[in-house]
């Protein structure tokens, strides 16, 4: 398997932004996840060939960071923050509710590949605790009931693009701060949605 021409062009554009191609390793790992849904050995080989490293070196880098998922990952990665501020406001109950609704334990993926559930360390939403991310798009002020409703909605609506504003509107509460104008770009898989990496898409 090799990358499509479009992905390859994107990779070259990213590499050109750095004085040393090796610096493009992390962005290209997200491209690889975009290609395959999670980070595969093939994907790491594709990255290695473009940044001038061996596949082993790329794996060494990828394995350091929690966001490079080297196991099969659901279309919707639900990350429940359980660090100190979210814990104080009931995050453990949110995580339990999300696991119950999806039938997926913390750290697991379901058989259909629809959901992965994980507890996350602090995601910088402490003023809107407890906070949840779906494919790294944020929802703040989530109760256990709303956490369940969020997962049920994901299962029913199957949004192609996960939009933070939409989820916040439907399932969120207290925010860390006013978010300002709404965002039309969102996530298409379990990796951060960022236009220069080609991993974001315009939603509804």
């Amino acid at each position: 398997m090799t990358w499509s021409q479009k992905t390859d062009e994107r990779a070259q554009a990213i590499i050109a932004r750095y004085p040393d191609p090796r610096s493009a390793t992390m962005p290209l790992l997200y491209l690889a996840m975009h290609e395959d849904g999670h980070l595969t050995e093939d994907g790491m080989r594709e990255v290695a060939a473009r940044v001038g490293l061996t596949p082993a070196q790329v794996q060494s880098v990828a394995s350091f960071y929690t966001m490079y998922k080297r196991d099969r990952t659901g279309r919707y990665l639900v990350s429940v923050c359980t660090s100190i501020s979210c814990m104080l406001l009931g995050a453990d109950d949110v995580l339990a509710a999300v696991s119950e609704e999806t039938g997926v334990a913390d750290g697991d993926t379901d058989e259909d590949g629809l959901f992965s559930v994980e507890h996350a360390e602090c995601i910088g939403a402490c003023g809107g605790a407890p906070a949840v991310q779906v494919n790294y798009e944020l929802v703040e002020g989530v109760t256990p009931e709303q956490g369940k409703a969020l997962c049920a909605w994901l299962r029913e609506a199957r949004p192609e693009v996960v939009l933070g504003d939409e989820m916040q509107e439907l399932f969120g509460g207290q925010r860390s701060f006013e978010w300002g104008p709404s965002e039309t770009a969102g996530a298409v898989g379990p990796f951060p949605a960022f236009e220069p990496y080609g991993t974001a898409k315009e939603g509804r």
Partner: protein
Amino acid sequence: MTDRILTTRMDAHPADSNVLARYEATGGYAALRTALASKTPEEIAAEVKASNIRGRGGANFPAGVKWGFLPPETRPRYLVVNGDESEPGTFKDRQLLERDPHQLVEGIALSAYALDVRQAFVYIRGEYPRPARRLQRAIDEAYEAGYLGTGILGSGFDLDITVHLGGGAYICGEETALLNSLEGRRGEPRIKPPFPAVEGLYAKPTIVNNVETLSNVPFMINQGGAAYDAIGPEGARGTRLFSLSGHVRNPGNKEIVMGMTWRDLIYGLGGGIPEDRAIKAWIPGGASAPWLLPEHLDEPVTIDDVGRLKTMLGSGAVVVMDETTCVVKAAHRIVRFFAHESCGQCTPCREGGSWLERMLARIESGDGRMMDLDLLLDVSDNISPGLTWPPKMTTICPLGPSATAPVTSIMWHFRNEVEAHITGGGCPL
């Protein structure tokens, strides 16, 4: 007197404070125009030095002094902006990136001009795609308008800015780990010296500054470094964004002049504790900071006053815990974080952190042993000898010692409650 610098635009113009047109209409990029038309790089650097701003990332080191460590001759130099904001309790840089990204872009451009830098990088934590998108759009707008790129505003000054997303590793907020990560390596901190100003990105002289620090630079050029230095008490100049969370009625980022009391911050701006419950303790500067207690409520919120209480303002993250909080659970949760985020290079941190975590877990669940009490402090002492403040280190970076902060906080101030978990077979609350 000015009491807010960073958040005025976003409060006045919530619908479009992130957009170039609004930024320009509210005085944006005037400082960059002035600088490029009529000031030398040395003059810009002198204003930042005169401001006496201390870095807002957590270490509180004077930014102007840091700039002075660059060797005069070596080129290229790099400017790296630390937007890896990951200290539990901290969410201020996220707001600055989402709500006023041009303020940061102008701060970067001014700083790059002052430092003779042609290429800057903004390292944003991977869990912040929305802030990253907002910043990237601002950068795109700035290129379009001629505030970035080649021959900026008709001058001979060129600058490129690249936004780089992290991969979910707290340790990359440590500046040398960040540089390794930006080079496409594991985010392991480097042994210092050499400091980044001498050998940083690609072993070239590099300045690493926090998002909030650089967002203040346009003000310093518009109003003068002396005007910034006139705000707040000595050693704590300027305004500062505090991230308030936990058991408070009005959580959020509060931009304040330092020097108010903790009572003013927690009960005034924070609105006090829900249902008027009693306060038990609070974390004054992120999960790495030892806790403060009700007896400290009337102490002033400044960098040095908090240092005298043997803790720190760190990243400005204040986490309030009320009387219903189980301190063992809270400490365990924080230690779990550090154990998970240890990069693994140094044995005291890698082994000690997870050992502390396991001990706290069993005490919390009621399976602790009385000998665990001494063992908790003994293991902590092996990570940070003497358990002094500021901490002594047996490790390359301060992450290991940070894991001991919640342990000493509960062992020194809440020992009875910890013991009760052991004697009573679980939480007494």
